[in-house]
């Protein structure tokens, strides 16, 4: 593993009951870069994303084989605590899902349960810093006690990003974070993702190839449970090696 790689996936097979959803995925994810996972619906890109913070554990019939190493530690080892893992690997979901609490409580919830808040000034500092990093501070600074659900869709999604980074993760997983948003809100989120890459490693699942091209440095193309091709985003889009990748980016499949 090179110093610049943070996640290495080796021979990852995921099953839902009898059905195999991912077939022997091998992928290296570089540190402090944006990696996008693209592919047609049902190709397994979200399943792979959810294997990285073990959200698949919540599905009773789901089984994961192989290993995913984060900083040289296989997260499927017996001694790995998923709670600690998920504090380390944050997640932003497709639909903005703030808690039905105040904006302040939304952001501070994670740090609170992980015991990162010692005092009230601590809490205020964490909230301000997280909201600033998520580019939301200027919009909500004067109404932190209003419900997070009262914000616009784009603001809600940035609140969810603020909530994720408040826990100080090193990796942020994003599952189609802009698919429920309008183009303007999407542009704001994409800009934000580009800024966040300075401090975090970001893996983003997206349906939109344009979005992948805009925000990511590396792209992995999934098709029917296989990882077809992975490489620098520019190269993958300009000179794909595999015929299926070629077909997908030219719009013939998907």
């Amino acid at each position, binding site marked *: 593993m090179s110093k610049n790689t943070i996640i290495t996936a080796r021979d990852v097979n995921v099953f839902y009951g009898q059905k195999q959803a991912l077939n022997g995925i091998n992928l290296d994810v570089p540190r402090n870069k944006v990696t996008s996972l693209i592919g047609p619906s049902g190709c397994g890109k979200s399943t792979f994303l959810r294997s990285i*913070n073990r*959200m698949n554990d*919540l599905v*009773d019939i789901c089984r994961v084989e192989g290993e995913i190493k984060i900083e040289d530690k296989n997260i499927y080892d017996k001694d790995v605590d998923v*709670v*600690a*893992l*998920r*504090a380390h690997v*944050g*997640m932003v*979901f497709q*639909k903005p*899902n*703030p*808690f*039905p609490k105040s904006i302040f409580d939304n952001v501070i*919830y*994670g740090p609170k*349960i*992980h015991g990162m808040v010692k005092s009230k000034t601590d809490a205020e500092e964490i909230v301000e810093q997280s909201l600033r990093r998520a580019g939301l501070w200027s919009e909500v600074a004067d109404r932190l006690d209003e*419900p997070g*659900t009262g914000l616009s869709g784009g603001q809600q999604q940035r609140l*969810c990003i603020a*909530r*994720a980074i408040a*826990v100080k993760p090193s990796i942020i997983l994003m599952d189609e974070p802009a698919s429920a948003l309008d183009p303007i809100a999407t542009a704001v989120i994409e800009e934000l993702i580009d800024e966040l890459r300075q401090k975090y490693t970001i893996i983003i699942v997206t349906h939109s190839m344009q979005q992948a091209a805009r925000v990511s440095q590396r792209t992995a193309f999934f098709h029917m449970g296989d990882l077809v091709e992975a490489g620098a985003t520019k190269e993958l889009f300009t000179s794909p090696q595999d015929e299926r990748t070629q077909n997908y980016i030219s719009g013939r499949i998907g």
Partner: protein
Amino acid sequence: MSKMFTSAEKHLKSRHRAELRFRWMGRLAILFSLGFLTIMLFSIIMLGKGALNRAEIALPIDLSIEHVDPSDIEATSFSKLVRNALFEAFPEVTDRGERRRLLGLVSANAQYELKDQILETPSLLGQVQTLWLTASDDIDLYEKGEVDITLPQDQRRLKDLEISWLKTFEANGQLRSVFNKAFFTSGDSREPELAGILSALIGSILSLTICFVLSFPLGIMAAIYLEEFSKKSYWSDFIEVNINNLAAVPSIVFGLLGLSIFLGVFGLPRSSPLVGGMVLALMTLPTIIIASRAALRSVPGSIREAALGMGATQVQSTFHHVMPLAMPGMLTGSIVGMARALGETAPLLMIGMVAFIVDLPQGFTDAATTLPVQVFLWADSPERAFLEKTSAAILVLLSLLIVMNIAAIVLRKKFERRY
């Protein structure tokens, strides 16, 4: 109309007619049910409103020193005072049978009322005082105009002789109707004019308290475990089916269970609100579990994902986020279950809560009865005057139900949050 629409137009009229027909059938159904509800409420109110009043008879009672010793009031024979007052009111009555009828005009309780009045205001002593005493139930019915005096004498309990005495009282202003406070402040009695619902009301409240304390935490804990924590397996399916079946088990079966386990094995006190509440809790549990599970299921999965995704444990996710959102539904379900328990009679009959309770229950282990059982007991009594008591008790029961349902709505509104 252009040709384009003709194919659709062919059936358009009958489709619209079918829609209109359905709408009207729905409206009629609602109208019918509302109508029956109104008739039911109206008839119960009409029957029960009489219980709010009772008749009293004024009698001049000789409280001079030769009859009542002011230094030893307890030694007085108050029944004799009442008796003498009645005999003096109608000195012409001498026949033993007729004299007994004369004494029957006032309630059996009259002597104690007299004593209480004297103990309250000792200044009454020393002379003849005109005091109001509760009339017996037949007189009460007559005063309310519920005795049909046109019937032949042998077909009614109140004979012509008594009616003539009453007419005299009426003419002298010695008969009046007052608010029947005793109905709300005393326990059951064999005498309809003295019977009250307070002991049954207290019994109901005590039983429901036990029922709530047992079934609410148990029910929502079971629901939370089944819905949020347990893995889907053969066993969880088996348990789910059985909980649904339990909710449909006739309530008297729970009574039998309570009889054999709580009374038979554990030896808990018979007729007590403790056992009654435990039996009702058994009956209410499945309802609460089912309602709470439905409430938990209606919380969007995205909330759980959000919490778990940032490293909350399953317990934190459930208690910090899912349960507060499911609370209104859980509370509503529980209160509906409680309301069912409040109206339950059958299982309580099995554990002996069908008792004749005069004294107010002081605690959870005292013998008690509940409102619906009281209704059942009064409905079963031969005295006609119990008819209005029965209806009035039903009204009290209904009011309690309405209060509980309003509480459910208020709690729902209070805890409801947008997500």
